[in-house]
């Protein structure tokens, strides 16, 4: 059981069905290759590509606020995924021109630092890309390139302080053990501004839901960056550099960028900003119906609509549900919060209904008043799709 969140979790009823549906909104080609499969350490995930491994969770998984490790999505850009055996004797280097003394930390050194816990959503920047019309090139994700877990490990700031941070430090650079297959492919390197790196909620996770991290979610150590898109959550973390300079990396300067001004953020990543584009950072407010599932037959006497809502950490203040494709909206009931970066569960009891088909939708508002977009904010990477989707059910 998960400490702290236990009571709230126990209250979530389990959903009847497993989603067997490959969304009709995906490109035809994606639909022709996507399959529900069991892969080592994971149960029934939607495979988009096997190499590199890209697997989404079926939508029914989100009927709970905590995503089990064996249903947590998998996302790699580069195919050279390390084996668990290759991580034997793993250590983490902390160096760079803005540390006092470079150190090489063993697992035992990290365990000596005080442990922090954060319950946080990890969501791929391209989650729901495959549902965008017109389609945008990239991994054609469904709703399931996300999950929410209880992460534990030392705060990144304490790890950095082990090496001593100079006051001229500007960014912290990260690298993991997953590597490109060919020399010409840029290694997956990412950076954070000092402010986010020193945030007490930014941690180096050694456990996920009270178990070691699954290999495909970053074993043995993964960076947790609550409120920011998954691209910063470096898996198989091996190297940290504290620098007076901005990181030059394809994955910072070319990929994972959005037009300047399109998605307002609380704290701009200034060192990586240019006149026309900014790195994608903070999540946008979002919500998802996890049950009933598309095509379900539901009871005339009424049924319960459940799902989750989340945002960049302000917290959710309201979720509304529509039964008629967005013409009319009703307030859903919010369950207790298990953390400001976590999913917030909602439910709505429909009451008796006439026979017919119903187009269910949900939309969330954050504590700062942020609302979901009504139409896709078009951007070349197909990021931040938070346009409410539709689940059609039938009352017979």
């Amino acid at each position, binding site marked *: 059981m998960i400490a702290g969140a236990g009571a709230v979790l126990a209250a979530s009823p389990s959903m009847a069905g497993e989603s067997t549906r490959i969304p009709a909104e995906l*490109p*035809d*080609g*994606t639909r*022709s*290759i996507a399959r529900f*499969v069991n*892969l*080592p350490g994971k149960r029934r995930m939607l*495979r*988009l*590509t*096997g*190499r*590199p*491994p890209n697997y989404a969770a079926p939508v029914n998984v989100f009927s709970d606020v905590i995503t089990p490790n064996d249903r947590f999505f998998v996302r790699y850009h*580069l*195919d*050279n*995924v*390390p*084996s*668990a*055996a*290759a991580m034997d004797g793993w250590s983490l280097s902390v160096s760079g021109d803005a540390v006092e003394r470079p150190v090489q930390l063993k697992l035992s050194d990290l365990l000596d630092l005080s442990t922090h816990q954060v319950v946080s959503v990890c969501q791929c920047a391209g989650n729901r890309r495959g549902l965008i019309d*017109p*389609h945008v*090139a*990239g*991994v*054609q994700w469904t709703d399931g390139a996300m999950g929410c877990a209880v992460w534990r490990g030392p705060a990144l700031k304490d790890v950095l302080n082990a090496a001593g941070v100079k006051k001229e430090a500007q960014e912290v650079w990260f690298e993991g053990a997953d590597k*490109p*297959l*060919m*020399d*010409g*492919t*840029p290694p997956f390197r990412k950076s954070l501004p000092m402010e986010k790196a020193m945030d007490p909620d930014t941690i180096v996770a050694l456990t996920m839901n009270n178990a070691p991290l699954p*290999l495909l979610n970053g074993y043995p150590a993964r960076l947790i960056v609550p409120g920011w898109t998954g691209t910063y959550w470096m898996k198989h973390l091996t190297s940290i550099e504290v620098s007076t300079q901005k990181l030059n990396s*394809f994955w910072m300067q*070319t990929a994972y960028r959005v037009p300047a001004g399109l998605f307002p953020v609380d704290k701009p990543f200034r060192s990586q900003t240019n006149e026309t584009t900014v790195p994608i950072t903070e999540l946008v407010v979002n919500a998802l119906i996890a049950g009933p599932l598309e095509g379900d037959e539901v009871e005339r006497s009424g049924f319960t609509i459940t799902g989750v809502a989340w945002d960049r950490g302000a917290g959710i203040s309201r979720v509304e549900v529509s039964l008629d494709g967005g013409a009319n909206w009703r307030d859903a009931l919010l369950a207790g919060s298990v953390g400001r970066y976590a999913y917030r569960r909602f439910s709505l009891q429909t009451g008796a209904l006439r026979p017919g088909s119903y187009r269910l939708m949900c939309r969330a508002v954050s504590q700062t008043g942020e609302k979901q977009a009504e139409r896709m904010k078009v951007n070349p990477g197909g990021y931040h799709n938070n346009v409410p989707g539709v689940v059609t059910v039938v009352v017979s």
Partner: protein
Amino acid sequence: MRRWLAAAVAVLACNTALMCNATLAEEPAALMPGAGADVTGAYCNVCHTSDYIVMNSTFLTGDQWKAEVTKMRKAFGAPMDDATVAEISAYLAANYAVAAKP
């Protein structure tokens, strides 16, 4: 060259027991038959499976496919000469593209 690439992939992909198991069961979907299919299968099945092509169909135009192939070469270091880029782009335009909007 083609055979070398395929062999390199097999060796690298089996570096890890886990991925080896996963990939054995997961041959990429067959590409459409036609002129250029072999070359495309060889060059576009290295850093990722050719499922990346099928997954991104059918919505790109022929020009957008050419831009993708060029990106693989320039940004990701795919070892291809101009003639290979042209051959693969033509194959993708013929088999995985939509007509350009007027």
